[in-house]
């Protein structure tokens, strides 16, 4: 039995939009084990992204607990959460979310800046990571000089910057053509093989083959939680 990295314990999240209150999560119980490739499936508005924000410490629950490596993060300050995110979690977004004024190299260095890594180490590690995702010749390119697939690979390199144990990917192939999408999935699969825990949110059923566990979310609750044999 492998270790639990993240545990969502009866988590609810209600967004207060003034007159209406939206219940995005209505009591989620989920344990993410170390070394898993977990896909959270659901239609848009199902609460899957909110669920991922909880796992990624980007947001705190309205009620319930979120435990990361056994620590209850629900009550931590935003600054403490930021530290945890920076060290333990790497994010890959559908929109890539690179900083447009920075080169590929600088984008990958960014998470290390906030962890106080010195410049030389940063540069070396960022170069290595970009080589690893096949962008060794694109170090000094700005995001708008890169294709969608290349941008997403920069984002993956950035997610790996502080060598986190958990990679969170929110529709990482959503804005890519199928070839670039396959390349990105290949990199994520490789990372999983190297021992990283990968949690991916998607609504694309064709991706389920990459995962060894699939969680279906609808209307803020977990419908199905299936292990897959590969």
């Amino acid at each position: 039995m492998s270790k639990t990295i993240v545990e969502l314990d009866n988590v609810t999240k209600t967004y207060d939009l003034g007159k209406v209150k939206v219940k995005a999560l209505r009591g989620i119980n989920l344990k993410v084990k170390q070394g898993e490739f977990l896909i959270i499936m659901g239609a848009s508005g199902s609460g899957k992204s909110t669920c991922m924000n909880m796992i990624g410490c980007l947001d705190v629950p309205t009620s319930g607990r979120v435990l990361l490596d056994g620590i209850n993060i629900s009550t931590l300050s935003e600054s403490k959460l930021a530290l945890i995110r920076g060290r333990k979690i790497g994010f890959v977004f559908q929109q890539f979310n690179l900083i447009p004024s920075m080169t590929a190299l600088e984008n990958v260095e960014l998470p290390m800046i906030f962890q106080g890594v010195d410049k030389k180490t940063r540069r070396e590690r960022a170069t290595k990571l970009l080589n690893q995702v096949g962008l060794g010749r694109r170090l000094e390119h700005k995001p708008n000089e890169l294709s969608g697939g290349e941008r997403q690979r920069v984002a993956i390199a950035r997610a790996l910057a502080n060598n986190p144990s958990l990679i969170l990917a929110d529709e990482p192939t959503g804005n890519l053509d199928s070839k670039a999408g396959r390349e990105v999935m290949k990199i994520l699969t490789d990372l999983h093989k190297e021992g990283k825990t990968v949690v991916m949110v998607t609504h694309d059923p064709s991706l389920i083959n990459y995962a060894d566990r699939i969680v279906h979310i609808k209307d803020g609750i977990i419908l199905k939680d299936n292990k897959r044999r590969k």
Partner: protein
Amino acid sequence: MILDYFNIILNDLKHKRLRSWLTIIGIIISIASIVSLISLAQGFKAGVNKQFENMGSDKITIAPKIFVGSSPLTKIDLEKVKQVNGVKSASGIIYKIAPLTFSNQRKYAYLTGLPLDKESKELFESMKSFKIVEGRDLKPGDKYKILLGSYAADGLFDKRIKVGDSVTLLGKKFRVVGIVGSFGDREDDSAVYVPVTIARNLLNEPNAEDLIFVQVDKGSEPEVVAKSIEKKLDNLYGVTDKTEPFLVLTNEDLSKRINDLLIVVQVIFLGIAFISILVGGVGITTTMYTSVVEKTKEIGIMKAVGARNSDILAIFLAESSLISLIGGIIGLGIGVVLAKLVQIISVRAMATSLIQVYLTWQLLLGVLVFSLFIGLLSGLSPAIKASKMTPVKALRFSM
């Protein structure tokens, strides 16, 4: 860490170059005006104080209240002053602006009529570093002989005037017998000196004294002696403190009066500068708010990859201070150049070197620290706004 932030910011400033520069220009203008105004005011103050220092503190000056037209002071006053207790010696001069002609060029110089008796000479020599650098001094018995200030000899006319040359002053030919060394002050250096008797004749002022200088006895207080002189002259004229047409000033009085005036001028200057820096600061605040809104998504990204609130705060504060500091540095340069220009123009147009640029490292450093402070202050509220954004909301933001 801070250096890393600066990298992030420099990138960003390059990205929106025009807007950054427009904001920076606001700061440049205010810092340039602060630097030029203060350096000139301080220079003026230093110049005035130096003149008083040269004169020594044991002197008293009696001058007409208004320096236009004929002086109300006369030879009779001078004699009365000499009788006052504590007065060692006293001497009067004639001092007028007069046309001076040399090699067909006509200029204006400060004509000074010097009494040539021994007592007066001693008094004047102790007041100013009055040195003959070429030729000889005026001596008793000299008539149409003239001494030229260093600038009057070399600078006022296209051609340099030498000892032995002839110049025409008020229609009379004078032979140059000596050149006086520079006092470091254009006004003084533009003076020409003739025997007082000759000056009186030419100006048709047989009795007037434009300025009376008094040497106080050793052991007498200049303040006390000045009061006695004033009382004596008041009695003579039958006037009171308020209606008297002259001023009796010790050097300390005089420098205090002028310094008080300069403080007022400086306060006004600083007030103007303060308003302009306020405008510049508001400019930074506006730019920073716009920047925070534009960069909402980037703030979200940075937070997602581990930036704490304090990191975001620091990044935005560093950006606003950098904008302000760049403005400060450039403004400093322009301010110095501007002040130098004012100095040069004032020398050329008004023949006064009292307006001198006076730069101290305290001023330079102070201005830079001040612009940094303005940057921090104007960036504070936008930076706080940026740091408090929640990552989820910030990431969802789109323009």
